[in-house]
């Protein structure tokens, strides 16, 4: 078991790199599968010092649900932002900074949360607090900043808690 985790510090990353290589080659053959697998072993092995912890992922179904929700929200976000850009005058917009207290602690989970926030409706994650317990988010148009905060916590963070912890 220890030998296994020395060779594969990040089994999921190994699988992902193999898959990415196959997609890059754009056709399936045993040759490219083996070479992709080789890359999948070498790259995590070489970068291991920079990524000491192995994030634990649970509930594959929940991950699929999260991705589906995120993609749907990205589509809605695009339309919402396009409408604000096209039809709302700058003076009518109320941009706001909001501070989101986070219950998530693992760096990987916070990265996913910050990335999702940037890709979804009218929000960009701008900064973390000094100790990493709060997330600073900028809203393009937020008449009610508290509602935005509650929605982010309930819609994304709660699901990430279930996946990562």
């Amino acid at each position: 078991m220890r030998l296994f985790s020395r060779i594969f510090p990040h089994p999921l990353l190994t699988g992902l790199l193999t898959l990415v290589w196959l997609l890059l080659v754009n056709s399936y053959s045993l040759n490219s599968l083996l070479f992709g697998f080789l890359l999948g072993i070498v790259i995590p092995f070489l970068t291991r010092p920079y990524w000491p912890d192995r994030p634990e992922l649970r509930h594959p179904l929940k991950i699929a649900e999260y991705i589906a929700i995120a993609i749907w929200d990205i589509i809605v976000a695009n339309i919402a932002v396009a409408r604000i850009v096209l039809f709302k005058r700058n003076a009518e917009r109320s941009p706001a900074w909001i501070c989101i207290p986070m219950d998530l602690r693992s760096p990987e989970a916070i990265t996913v949360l910050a990335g999702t926030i940037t890709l979804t409706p009218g929000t960009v994650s701008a900064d973390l607090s000094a100790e990493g317990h709060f997330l600073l988010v900028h809203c393009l148009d937020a008449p009610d900043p508290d509602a935005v905060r509650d929605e982010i916590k309930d819609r994304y963070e709660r699901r990430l808690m279930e996946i990562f912890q």
Partner: protein
Amino acid sequence: MEQVFDLLITVFLVVGGIFGLVGSFGLIKLDDPMSRLHAPTKATTLGVGGVLIASMVHAYAHEGHLSWHELLITLFLFLTAPITANFIAKAHIHRHETPDTLPPAGEDKTWATHDVPPEEPGSGRG
């Protein structure tokens, strides 16, 4: 059947083009730097997405094989867009915001960009 595919490709190209245009227009129209950041990060995602879906349909309908490169481009785009936005936002905070203009960071006292150790005497940048 060919015509249906061509119609699909056209629709996706036009939708993608419109969103790309709106994103670029937003960059000019919005009036403060942080708001400007919103238009390109989002509108462009769907703009590029539309073009990529059109490309996948084209490869399937006219070249007779599935192309996976578009999925990879989407993946890389989703990874890089938030990081770029984050770095631009941090640069903005660094240069134009002070701890007073941002909301308080709760018990953590300050935001990471403003969390700079006090400069040692003699090591000033001139």
